[in-house]
C-alpha cells in the first residue's frame, strides 16, 4: 500500500513539473505581451522589461521562476500591480471554494436522491419528471441558468439578492446555478447505475432471501451503484471548487474564475502561471486522493495498478 501511494505521489509531481514548464512556454508564445497598450512607447517598454526581468534570457527567467515556485512563491502579479499571486489566490480561493462546496452539496444530495427515486420508479410519472430535470440541467449552459435564476428570483420577484456575496441569502442563486449541471449529471449517472444493479444476481438473491425492500435498496443497491459517482466526483470537485468565470461574473463574486480570465486577457504572465499551477495542483491532488481511495475501497485496483 505504501509503495502504491508513493508511486502515485511521484507521478503527480512529475505531472505538475510538465504542466508548469509547458504553461511557462505557452504564455510567452502567446502573441502580444503584458505591456502592450495603446500608449506604450519603445522607451517605456524597455524600462518595464528591465523592471520585470524580461530582458534576461528566457532560460534564466524559467530557472528563477522555478526556484521561487519550489519555495511556494508565485511572484507578483503584473496587472494587479503590487499584489502577489499568493495573496490573490488566498483571497479568491475561499470564495470559489465556498461557492463550489455549496453547489456540490446541493448537486450531490439532490442528484443522488433524484437518481435513486427515478430508478426505483422506472417508467412512472415521477421518473419522467426526474429525467426531464436531468436533461434540462445537462443541456442548459450555466450562463443561461445564472441569468434565468437572477432574473426571476432576484429581479422579477425580488426574493433574493441580485448579486455579490455578502451572506447566506446571497449564496443561494449562484450555488444553485453552479450546481445544477452537476446535479443533473449525478442524477443521470445514479439512475443508470441503479438500473444496472437491479439486474445483478446479488439483488435477486437478497430478494429471494426475503430481505425487506428498504434493506435491499440501502445495503445492496445504493452501496454498489454509487461507485461510478465516486469516480466522477474527484475531477468534478476540483473543477467546481476552483472557480467558474460565468457564474462568478453574473453574480459579481470575486472568485478564482474572474481573476483567471482577466489574467489571460491582460497576459499577466505571473498570474496566469500561478493560477494554472494552483488549478493543476488541485486537480492532481483530487485525482491522487481518488486513486488512493480506490486502492483502499477495492484491493483489486491496487494490485492491478501498483
Amino acid at each position: 500500500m505504501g509503495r502504491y501511494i508513493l508511486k502515485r505521489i511521484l507521478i503527480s509531481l512529475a505531472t505538475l513539473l510538465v504542466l508548469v514548464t509547458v504553461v511557462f512556454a505557452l504564455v510567452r508564445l502567446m502573441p502580444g505581451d503584458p505591456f502592450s497598450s495603446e500608449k506604450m512607447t519603445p522607451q517605456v517598454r524597455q524600462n518595464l522589461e528591465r523592471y520585470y526581468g524580461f530582458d534576461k534570457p528566457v532560460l534564466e527567467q524559467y530557472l528563477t521562476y522555478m526556484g521561487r515556485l519550489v519555495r511556494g512563491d508565485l511572484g507578483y502579479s503584473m496587472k494587479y500591480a503590487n499584489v502577489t499571486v499568493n495573496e490573490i489566490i488566498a483571497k479568491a480561493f475561499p470564495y470559489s471554494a465556498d461557492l463550489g462546496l455549496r453547489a456540490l452539496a446541493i448537486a450531490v444530495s439532490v442528484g443522488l436522491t433524484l437518481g435513486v427515486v427515478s430508478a426505483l420508479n422506472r417508467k412512472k410519472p415521477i421518473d419522467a419528471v426526474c429525467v426531464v430535470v436531468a436533461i434540462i440541467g445537462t443541456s442548459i449552459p450555466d450562463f443561461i441558468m445564472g441569468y434565468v435564476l437572477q432574473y426571476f428570483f432576484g429581479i422579477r420577484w425580488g426574493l433574493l439578492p441580485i448579486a455579490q456575496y455578502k451572506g447566506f441569502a446571497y449564496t443561494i442563486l449562484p450555488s444553485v446555478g453552479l450546481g445544477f449541471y452537476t446535479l443533473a449529471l449525478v442524477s443521470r449517472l445514479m439512475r443508470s447505475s441503479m438500473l444496472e444493479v437491479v439486474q445483478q444476481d446479488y439483488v435477486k438473491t437478497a430478494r429471494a432471501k426475503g430481505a425487506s425492500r428498504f434493506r435491499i435498496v440501502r445495503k445492496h443497491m445504493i452501496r454498489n451503484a454509487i461507485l461510478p459517482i465516486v469516480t466522477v466526483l474527484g475531477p468534478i470537485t476540483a473543477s467546481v471548487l476552483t472557480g467558474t468565470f460565468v457564474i462568478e461574473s453574473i453574480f459579481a463574486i470575486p472568485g478564482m474564475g474572474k481573476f483567471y480570465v482577466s489574467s489571460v486577457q491582460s497576459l499577466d504572465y505571473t498570474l496566469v502561471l500561478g493560477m494554472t499551477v494552483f488549478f493543476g495542483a488541485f486537480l492532481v491532488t483530487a485525482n491522487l486522493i481518488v486513486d488512493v481511495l480506490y486502492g483502499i475501497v477495492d484491493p483489486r485496483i491496487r494490485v492491478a495498478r501498483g
Partner: protein
Amino acid sequence: MKRSLVVVACALALAATGCAPKAEKAEAASPKVFRFSYVSDIPTLDPQMGNSMPSATVAFHIFDGLTRMDNGAVKPGIAESWTVSDDGLVYVFKLRDAKWSDGQPIKAQEFEYGIRRLMDPAAASPYSFLGLLIENADAVNSGKMPVEKLGVRAVDDKTVELRLAYPADYFLGMLSMCQFCATRPDLVERYGKDFAATPDKNVYDGPFMVKEWAREDRMILVKNPNYWNADSIALDEIDILIVPDENTALAMFDAGDLDLVRVPPAFVEKYKDRVVYYYDGSNDFIKLNMASKGPLSDKDFRLALNYAVDRQDFVDITTKGLYDANPRYVLPQVAGVDAAYGTEYPLPGFGVRADVAKAKDHLAKAMARLGVADPSSIEIEFLTSDTDRSRAQAEIVQDQWQKNLGIKVVVKQVPYRQRLDMESKKTFETVFTGWAPDYSDPMTYLELWTSDSPYNHGSYRSAKYDEYVAFARKSTDKRARMDALFAAEKELLADGAIVPMQLRRESLLVNPAFTGVGTYFIGTNYDLVHADRASK
C-alpha cells in the same frame, strides 16, 4: 463504505453552512454614500504607476495635485497660487498648509520626489511619457541623465519649481493628474513593491481616502478629514463595486443597489428618457499604414477610403446611434483659446455620410497613378480585435469599402493585445484603433502624427504637419498656437492619413436623489467631489 459516505455528507453539510466569507455589516442609516460599479478591479492606486481610467478616477478622489481640474477649469489644489514665466517655461508653485491623511504636512520635496519617480527609468512607470514635456525628461527616462537633472525642484518646503522643455498651457491641467502628485518617499521606501497595495500602505491628500479594498470585489472610499477643503465635501463615502456583467449592474441599479450605472447600447432605448450622455474622450479611427508600397501609400487612395465610409450608418448599426459619427479628428470638446476647440474651429471634415462620387473620383486618380485598371484587383487587409463588436464594426466598413469602391477588403481578427503588438511593429495595412486624450488640448491628439512620434504607426510623413506642431510647441501666443494646431488637423485630414470614425458617447443612469455628479473626458470618468444627496 457506509462510514466514508457519512464523512462526505458531514463535510458537505459543514461546507454549506460553515465557511462563508464574512458578511458585511449593515450600513448605518444616515451617512451619504454614493455607489457605482466598474466591470473589473482598479489595477493600481500607486499614483505614478496608474495608466487606466479606473485608476485615474479613484486617484482623482484620493489625491490632490498642485492643481485640481473642476469640470474642465483649472483650480488651485495643494498649490494655493503660482506664477508662470513670460516664455511659458518656468512654473513656480506656492503650497498651502495642507496635510496628509496621517496628519503630516505636505512638503514641496514630496512633489519633487513624485515627479522624479514618474520619470525614473528604474521605477518603470508605464505612463512616464506623460511627463516628457518637462525639461530633460526624455534623457532622464532613457537613462542618459540622472533623475536629479529633471526640471523639477523643491526650492523650499513650500515652493515647487517646474521647468518645461517647451511651453504648454495645458500643463497646469495636467498637474491635477495623480502621476504628478506628491508622493511620500518614506512610505515608498518602507513598503517597496508593496507600496499602495493596500489602503494602509499609502496616505492620501485628496477629498477622500481609501478605507477598504477587496480585489475584484469592492473599494470603499471615505471622506478625508485632513483634506484642506474638507468642508466643501458632502459625501461621507463612495463605494465602488466590481460587477463584471453590465446586465447585472443595470439590474442592481434598478433594485437600488447602485447610484450610477453605465447603460450598454442595447438598453439605451429602454431608458432613453432618463439617461445622461457624456463623452469619455475616446476617439476611434482607422490607422492606415503608409509605409507599405501598396495603394495605401497613395494619398488619393486614402482619401477614397475616407469618403467611401458612411460614418452615420456605422454608428447607427454598431451602437444604435449612441456614439457620434466623427467626420474630423480632434474631439471638439477639448479646450480652444476661449471656448471649446470645436466651437472656435468648426470643420466639416469628410462629412458623416459617404460621398461616393468623391470617393470614386479619388480612386480613379489613385488607380491611374498606381497603374491599376480594375479596382477589384486591389486588396487590403482590415485588422481588428477578436470581439463580436469588432467583427460587426469590421464587416460594416468592409461592406462600405467593397460596395462603394469595388475593391476587395479582407478582415483579420486577432486578440486585443496581438492587435496592439502588430500596430507597434507596423505589421498591418489598416487597423481599427483609437486614442484617449491625456489633457484638454488638441495637441493630445495631434502629437501622435509627427514624423518622430512613437505612436505614428502609420508612418505618416509631412514636413508641413511637423512644422505646424513644432510651431504650436514653441509659441506662447495662444491664438497663433491654436491656429497652427487647426492647420495641422486640416493637413492630416487632407492627406487622408487616418480614417476618423466615431467619438464614444456613453450613457449613464444616475440616482436622481444625488446632485453634482460630474463626468469628464480626461483622466476621470466620474467626478463626485461636489456630489451631494438631498437630505431625506
